[in-house]
């Protein structure tokens, strides 16, 4: 068989496919690149579920350009290497929006790769919707026009946390900072030091430890005990927070904790009553949202089987805001111009149960409302089957919670208006 005999039908088929795809525009594709297996899967699946819920809601409301938005899932297996591979696959599959959130390491890889891809492929830009990777650099040194962060960052969380704890008069004068040794943890540590004068405390000791490798936190707790502090502030999440809580409980340590991710499922169950009085700065608390918050929580439970917890609330709101901006963008020859969407997003004021969500044009860091809650028996929504829940004590608007645009962000905006 000659080569041409084999190749010709393939060429014909390809051309035919190409023609079809030009005339029948493919639906808008959104790719979620998350840790769907492996150790980080619990976090990755939370982001996946939230994104799925939001896209379903957008599709029920009509999707975009008369078609349903297509959500494709990719498993990055928890690391930047996997994410880089899956990003290539997602772009090849025609995704224009990439959704991710569970890791700042993955977020850093994705945003870099997308920046480079967009430089090399003008007119075919891809956008990163960062729902929860909170290292500062992602909207600082690494910021670029096609990277949008819908969640907060280390500074925003610590600022809100310290402010509320100071106002309640519980922060004391001696603070211990314990964090994970990577971008997010280091940023949190810096923020804790930065807001020391605001909170009127002294950072007695700072600890950075390995990420999700430590089984026994009791040596760290005895270090905290030895430092004799009033408050421990930590950005820890996942196992590192859970084990820290357990070790604290076992030692009978009386210090109060200021946290950022205590609402991750399992934490309160394991920490038990020892967690009462601990603070958390988070981005969603159904109780703080009043009637709308309740409505959303019930709807989320009806669709997914449980109340939104951990990052799910913020992730859903971020994705719904993405949909809100889509509404005002018209298709250009049946395709979406992502730059037009990006400009629309910058002008979108999206109402969430927590307040108004906006995207700051200068660094594409969302102005996101922050809720500070305290672990208490009085909370409306109990978690983990315990009698405890998160009682909101303060809601900051996006503007109040915001921190200045980082000087390191030098954003190149597209020159042509779409």
């Amino acid at each position, binding site marked *: 068989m000659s080569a041409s005999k084999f190749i010709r039908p393939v060429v014909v088929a390809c051309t035919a496919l190409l023609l079809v795809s030009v005339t029948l525009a493919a639906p808008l594709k959104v790719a979620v690149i998350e840790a769907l297996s492996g*150790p980080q899967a619990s976090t990755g699946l939370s982001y996946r579920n939230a994104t799925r819920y939001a896209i379903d809601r957008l599709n029920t409301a009509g999707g975009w350009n008369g078609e349903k938005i297509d959500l494709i899932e990719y498993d990055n297996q928890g690391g930047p290497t996997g994410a880089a591979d899956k990003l290539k696959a997602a772009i090849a599959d025609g995704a224009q929006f990439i959704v991710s959130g569970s890791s700042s390491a993955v977020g850093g890889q994705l945003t870099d790769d997308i920046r480079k891809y967009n430089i090399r492929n003008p007119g075919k830009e891809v956008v990163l919707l960062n729902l929860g990777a909170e290292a500062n650099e992602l909207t600082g040194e690494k910021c670029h026009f096609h990277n949008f962060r819908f969640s907060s960052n280390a500074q925003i969380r610590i600022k809100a946390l310290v402010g509320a704890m100071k106002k309640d008069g519980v922060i004391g004068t001696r603070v211990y900072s314990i964090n994970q040794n990577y971008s997010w943890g280091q940023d949190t540590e810096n923020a804790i030091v930065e807001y020391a004068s605001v909170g009127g405390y002294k950072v007695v000791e700072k600890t*950075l430890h390995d990420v999700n490798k430590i089984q026994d936190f009791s040596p760290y707790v*005895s270090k905290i005990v030895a430092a004799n502090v009033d408050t421990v502030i930590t950005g820890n999440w996942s*196992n590192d927070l*859970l084990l820290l809580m357990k070790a604290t409980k076992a030692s009978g340590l009386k210090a109060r904790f200021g946290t950022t991710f205590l609402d991750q499922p399992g934490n309160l169950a394991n920490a038990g009553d020892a967690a009462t009085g601990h603070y958390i700065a988070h981005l969603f608390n159904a109780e703080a949202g009043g009637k709308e918050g309740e409505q959303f929580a019930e709807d989320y439970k009806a669709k997914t089987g449980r109340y939104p917890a951990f990052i799910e609330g913020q992730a859903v709101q971020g994705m719904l805001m993405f949909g809100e901006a889509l509404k005002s963008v018209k298709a250009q020859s049946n395709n979406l111009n992502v730059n037009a969407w990006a400009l629309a997003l910058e002008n979108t004021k999206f109402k969430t149960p927590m307040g108004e969500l906006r995207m700051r044009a200068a660094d594409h860091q969302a102005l996101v409302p922050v809720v500070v809650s305290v672990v208490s028996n009085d909370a409306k929504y109990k978690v983990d089957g315990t009698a405890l829940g998160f009682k909101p004590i303060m809601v900051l608007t996006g503007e109040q919670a915001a921190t200045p645009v980082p000087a390191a962000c030098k954003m190149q905006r597209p020159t042509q208006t779409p």
Partner: protein
Amino acid sequence: MEYFIISLLNGAIYGLLLFMVSAGLTLIFGMMGVLNFSHASFYMLGAYFAYTLSPLIGFGMAMIGASLLVGSVGVMVERFFLRRVHNYGHAHELLLTFGLSFIIAELVKLFFGNFPIDYRIPVSLDFAAFRIGGADYPFYRLIMGGIAIAMFALIYLLLTLTRVGIVVRSAIYKPRMAEALGHNVPLVFMGVFGVGAALAGLAGAVAGAFYTTNPNMALELGVMVFVVVVVGGLGSLGGAMIASLLIGIITSICVGIDKSLADLFSLLGIGDWAQDIGGLLTLKLSSLASTIPFALMLLVLLVRPSGLMGEKEHL
């Protein structure tokens, strides 16, 4: 000084826990030459079984029940899986147990979900043994240490003093000869594998309540257990004990040392220069605490490849 004592105690007890898990692994390797990658999964299974059983039959009984259950899982694995591939050599056994660890992890996720479960020590055991350095020292930690020491003594006596121990050791040393003398060698192997798994199960049941019980616990502890076995010498129970204690105590003490190489250099008067260089030189020892066991493993492999108490390799 008080801080040092607490660190020592914390480290020793964490080391004893490591020993509980690695005892089974080193036993199985020593006797059967099987490097069991799914060993830490047995540890995880122990925790989940105990969690399921404890509301039904009480905490204490659940410990025993979970170890027995995990032991029987181990027996099944040996009887129906490992025995089939044993003749094809170590690579096959390795791959088999490796695959098994994934299957167990996925099954656990299927039945118990992705998030940590609410497995806690019972209220009756949840009190402080004594107060030291301004903090309570939990009684349960002492129980964990006690169980590990009792386990070590029991296995050691069993192997050295009893008739069963003699049969087991002879089956390991000269399997053909033992078989010719009328001993059922495959049965011995199955038993050893089952006991090894049961020990890991017991460790999981005990430690899962104190630390966390989640689908990643096998992965988290598994690596450290291999480090223990390599440092202690493959197949040596005493070696595993020493290595576990060494790793536990070193890690625990390093957490409290906020010194870097630059501080060491400043003794020589070149501290400022070292601070300027940064990088590795200014990395604090405390932030490296959980990496130190791996450095120790590297050192042992370089200096004494057969481990602290391992026999010389037969070449």
